[in-house]
């Protein structure tokens, strides 16, 4: 018991010493470790041998060991040698040959290993002996070999000396006398059967014959086998750590107390981290945003901010999402019936409503591969690649916003809305009507060759004058102090005095007509003949006849009532317009050149301007300066009629191509507004004298009344609102309403039509 404990402590001390040596030895560490390994091995070996020989040498070895440690006996070395000799000798008793052989071998091996492992050999030998005595004897290197005190030095150093070292007493250990020459050696080799196992001991210089066990050990080592022959390298492995929970723990050691106590170090570390987080030195790890980038959303709308970078980026049109029809298990109504299927098969592929036949499968597993996939992708690519996509600058405007903000017609009252009176009596179409300046009388000229005078309020025809020809135009003298009517028929302009007014007025108009005829002198030169009527015609009120060279289409009065202009449309002549002065019975042709077919003429209500409407334009002449001041382009093919606003700054023109154009003379020579409300040719237009109204009559049988406010402010454009479509006239012979005129004081409009009636709308 004591021995084992002491040995354990010693071995611990020995390892400790080795550890201490490590830094000193440095490069030798490896060899030292190897040595120790070998030493261990030898120790194992020696143990086994030792145990065998324990009975014999126990006391001796103990003695030697203790003597070596405690008191160094002078004879110790000898004893040791003797002991070993004894041992050898005892062994020799078993077989001398063996010993000799080993010695010989030892000599041989000595030669071989002299350079390399001499020390090891000697060490091995030495330890072997030491272990024979006591396995714990030489724990330290100092106590390795107590027979020779030179220590662990190369033995060559003693080659030239007679001794090989010193014993514990400081006396020289002499080399054994070797007087063998090579021949002896050879002989010995030949003779001695143990020669191969004879090994010289460097420490002592003597030859040692290795025993069988030792030879075996050497052989095993040379083969790389484990030193101990009994050692089973392949013992069954005991698995300490397995998946099975064992009844007993691997270690029975109770858990440490510290494993139950919060660690102070950890606490310190945590508090440091907390502080760092609080100070903002450590930021929490950012949560990785998974929303963008990782997966591409095919159906997502393209980001406008990305698109903004590419100005002309045009996203490819998306494929429509699959519907119920594409389902593998569509509702039954999507499945084709036989007829549908037959129809589908008959149809041209491009005509088919569906490019596939909806099919039903009991489970998704049974859906076959889509055979047309590649084809469809290819087509799609072709579409994207070949069909040019271009950016449409489409304006997203609500159509209702495009409708101009116009006041409601209700707010623009009064204006004529309903037909109130029908003036019947004519038998032919009524081409022209005119209202007396007082608003009491209405004159109408018809194709039946009569001029009729009507009482406005009762639709009573008070007077009929047969003029003997289709009346083209009638015009009431706008001067309220005279009561005269100009009538154009054939190539004559008649001046009628209907005597429907106060006696004073009638008299003053008589006076105007019977003015001194000073123009008689140059009457012959003019193209026009003035003549007074007589007899029957005079009784009817026809006072003057102005014979024109050509057919007269229109007559128009000047606001003062002295001048009347007549129009004789002619392509090839400059004699198209004549201005007659009643008081002097004089006529003049204001134009020297033919500027186009004159359709209608009008005087400016206030200023000395004269409006001449030709086919495509309206020319405005200054009568004083005798020059053209403006030419209005009507943008229409054939002007039919014209009316001048009572203010004189606006003109409306009706044309045979269904248009009504409003000109603002201060604004432009182009129409300020074109109204295309009529379906057919516009025949007549009229302004109201007082109310902001104008009307147009058309062959489609309607009169359209529009509100047209004119502002004194030059910056404000006229407000034009169509307010009412008046129907009533019947269309006869493709002619509807032929003339339209307003009542001078009331918001009433008169219209005359091809159905031989005149209608009043109020």
């Amino acid at each position, binding site marked *: 018991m004591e021995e084992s404990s002491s040995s354990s402590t010693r071995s611990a001390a020995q390892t400790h010493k080795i550890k201490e040596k490590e830094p000193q030895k440095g490069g030798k560490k490896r060899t030292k470790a190897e040595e120790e390994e070998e030493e261990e091995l030898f120790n194992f070996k020696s143990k086994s041998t030792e145990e065998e020989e324990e009975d014999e040498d126990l006391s001796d070895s103990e003695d030697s060991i203790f003597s070596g440690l405690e008191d160094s006996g002078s004879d110790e070395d000898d004893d040791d040698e003797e002991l070993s000799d004894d041992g050898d000798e005892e062994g020799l008793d078993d077989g001398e040959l063996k010993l000799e052989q080993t010695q010989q071998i030892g000599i041989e091996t000595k030669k071989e290993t002299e350079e390399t492992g001499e020390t090891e050999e000697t060490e091995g030998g030495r330890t072997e002996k030491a272990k024979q005595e006591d396995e714990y004897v030489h724990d330290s290197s100092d106590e390795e070999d107590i027979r020779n005190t030179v220590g662990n030095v190369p033995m060559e150093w003693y080659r030239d000396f007679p001794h090989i070292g010193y014993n514990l007493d400081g006396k020289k250990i002499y080399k054994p006398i070797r007087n063998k020459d090579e021949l002896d050696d050879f002989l010995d080799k030949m003779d001695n059967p143990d020669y191969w196992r004879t090994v010289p001991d460097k420490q002592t210089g003597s030859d040692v014959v290795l025993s069988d066990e030792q030879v075996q050990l050497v052989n095993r080592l040379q083969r790389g086998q484990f030193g101990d022959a009994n050692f089973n390298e392949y013992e069954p492995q005991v698995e300490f750590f397995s998946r099975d929970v064992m009844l007993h723990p691997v270690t029975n050691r109770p858990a440490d107390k510290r494993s139950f106590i919060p660690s102070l170090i950890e606490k310190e570390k945590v508090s440091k981290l907390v502080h760092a987080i609080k100070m903002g030195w450590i930021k929490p790890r950012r949560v990785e945003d998974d929303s963008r980038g990782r997966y591409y959303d095919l159906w997502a709308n393209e980001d406008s901010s990305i698109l903004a970078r590419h100005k002309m980026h045009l996203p490819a049109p998306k494929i429509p999402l699959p519907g119920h029809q594409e389902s593998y298990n569509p509702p039954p109504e999507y499945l084709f019936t036989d007829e549908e299927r037959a129809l589908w098969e008959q149809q041209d592929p491009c005509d088919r409503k569906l490019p596939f036949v909806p099919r039903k499968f009991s489970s998704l597993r049974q859906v076959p591969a889509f055979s047309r996939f590649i084809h469809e992708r290819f087509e799609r690519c072709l579409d994207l690649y070949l069909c040019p996509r271009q950016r449409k600058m489409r304006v997203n405007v609500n159509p209702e916003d495009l409708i101009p903000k116009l006041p409601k017609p209700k707010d623009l009252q009064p204006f004529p809305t309903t037909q109130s009176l029908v003036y019947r009596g004519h038998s032919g179409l009524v081409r022209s009507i005119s209202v007396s300046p007082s608003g009491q009388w209405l004159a109408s000229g018809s194709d039946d060759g009569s001029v009729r005078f009507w009482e406005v309020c009762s639709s009573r025809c008070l007077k009929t004058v047969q003029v003997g020809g289709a009346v083209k135009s009638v015009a009431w003298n706008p001067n309220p102090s005279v009561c005269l009517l100009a009538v154009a028929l054939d190539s004559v302009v008649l001046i009628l005095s209907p005597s429907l007014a106060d*006696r004073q007025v009638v008299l003053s108009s008589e006076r105007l007509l019977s003015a001194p005829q000073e123009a008689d002198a140059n009457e012959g030169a003019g193209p026009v003949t003035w003549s007074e009527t007589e007899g029957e015609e005079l009784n009817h009120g026809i006072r003057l006849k102005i014979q024109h060279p050509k057919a007269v289409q229109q007559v128009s009065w000047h606001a003062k009532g002295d001048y009347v202009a007549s129009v004789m449309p002619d392509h090839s002549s400059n004699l198209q317009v004549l201005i007659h002065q009643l008081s002097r019975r004089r006529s003049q042709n204001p134009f020297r050149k033919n500027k186009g077919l004159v359709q209608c003429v009008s005087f400016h209500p206030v200023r000395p301007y004269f409006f001449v409407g030709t086919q495509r334009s309206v020319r405005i002449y200054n009568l004083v300066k005798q020059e053209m001041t403006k030419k209005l382009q009507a943008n229409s093919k054939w002007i039919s009629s014209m009316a001048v606003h009572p203010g004189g700054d606006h003109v409306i023109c009706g044309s045979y191509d269904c248009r009504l154009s409003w000109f603002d003379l201060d604004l432009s020579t182009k129409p300020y507004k074109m109204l295309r409300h009529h379906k057919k040719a516009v025949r007549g237009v009229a302004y109201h004298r007082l109310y902001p109204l104008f009307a147009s009559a058309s062959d489609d049988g309607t009169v359209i009344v529009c509100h047209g406010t004119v502002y004194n402010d030059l910056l404000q454009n006229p407000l034009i609102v169509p307010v009412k479509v008046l129907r009533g006239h019947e269309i006869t012979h493709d002619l509807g309403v032929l003339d339209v005129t307003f009542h001078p004081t009331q918001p009433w409009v008169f219209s005359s039509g091809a159905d031989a009636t005149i209608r009043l709308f109020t």
Partner: protein
Amino acid sequence: MSQLQARFFTEDKRYIVDDVPFSIPAGSEVQDLSNVINKLLEANNASHSKVEFDFLVRGQFLRTSLSIHMDTEGISTEEVVELEYVERITAPEPEECMMHDDWISSVDADAEWILTGSYDKTARIWSVEGKAVMTVAGHTDVVKDVAWVKRDGLTSLLLTASLDQTLLLWEWNSERNKLKARHCCRGHTGSVDAVATDPTGSKFCSGSWDKMLKIWSAVPTDEADEVEEPADRPRKKQKTQQLGLTRTPLMTLSGHNEAVSSVLWCDSEEVCSASWDHTIRVWDVETGGMKTALTGSKVFNCISYSPLCRRLASGSTDRHIRLWDPRTKDGSLVLLSLTSHTGWVTAVKWAPSHEHQLVSGSLDNLVKLWDTRSCKAPLYDLAAHEDKVFCVDWTESGLMLSGGADNKLYSYRYSACQTDAGA
């Protein structure tokens, strides 16, 4: 069918029933209610003969079923409904048709005689029975308006206004059937469209296209007023043309901006005129100044004044008959609007003996009898005319007259309830 609680009452002593609420079906119409009253009356009085009744709910005639009427008028059906019943106004019966040679422009009738003006430049006197008595010829143009001035025994004074800008004051002796033009009233410079005599018959007022109103003396004299003649005027010619002595106006009322279409006397000091300038003006004859002006939005064709209800009825070119209070100061207050005509209302006349009834003529060929308690629909449409109606009149004897462009003057006997008379 739900039931209503109704209580019947009447002003008419003859038809009084017990003042107890009855439960009647909500959907009952006038005829049903009338039957109910008749049953009640029969129960009271076995000798009762069946009478047709009309019913008033809060002063409005019942024209539809009771529930619909109360729904539209917003009357609660929870409470007891007060139903006033009156004897139904029987339809005017057409009596005579007086043929003229031309359009009839105007009519004025009193208890005995009917005076009509025509577009054939004459006026005619008819008996009430429809016999032509006299033709008044003298105007050189269409007679636009006529008026009786005064009846003094067998001698009558009458006025004709014409488009020839004059008015003629005639004296007619009905017994001898002699007619004499007493005065030719000159002064207007336009067609004289309206004439009216004052209640006393001493003055008359004329309205003309020349925008003027003139007050004349209606008393015939033997002296001609002095007329300023233009120096160069051929005087001789004038004399030969003239019928009767020249008379000049006492007063000229100017203020209208357009033609005067109708005039009337509210009382002996007040003249009311309607004009094309969309106004009705009330004038003080004493001072010659305008008192009030009622402004409309359309041309006025005719006005009529009822001293019974003191309302002015106007017919205008927008198909409406409007009722005005001429005494209002603020001007333009329409009390009620009667709308059923489809053309211009050319003539309107209050009933002389009934405060709620008036008759109107229109260019849509219809004459309508109205009750102001039923403003949505007229009581009766008199569709006798084949052309425009220009004039209507209503005599105190219960004769309604209408003339128009079909040259016919129709007379209708209107059986006014005796009890209603003077109510």
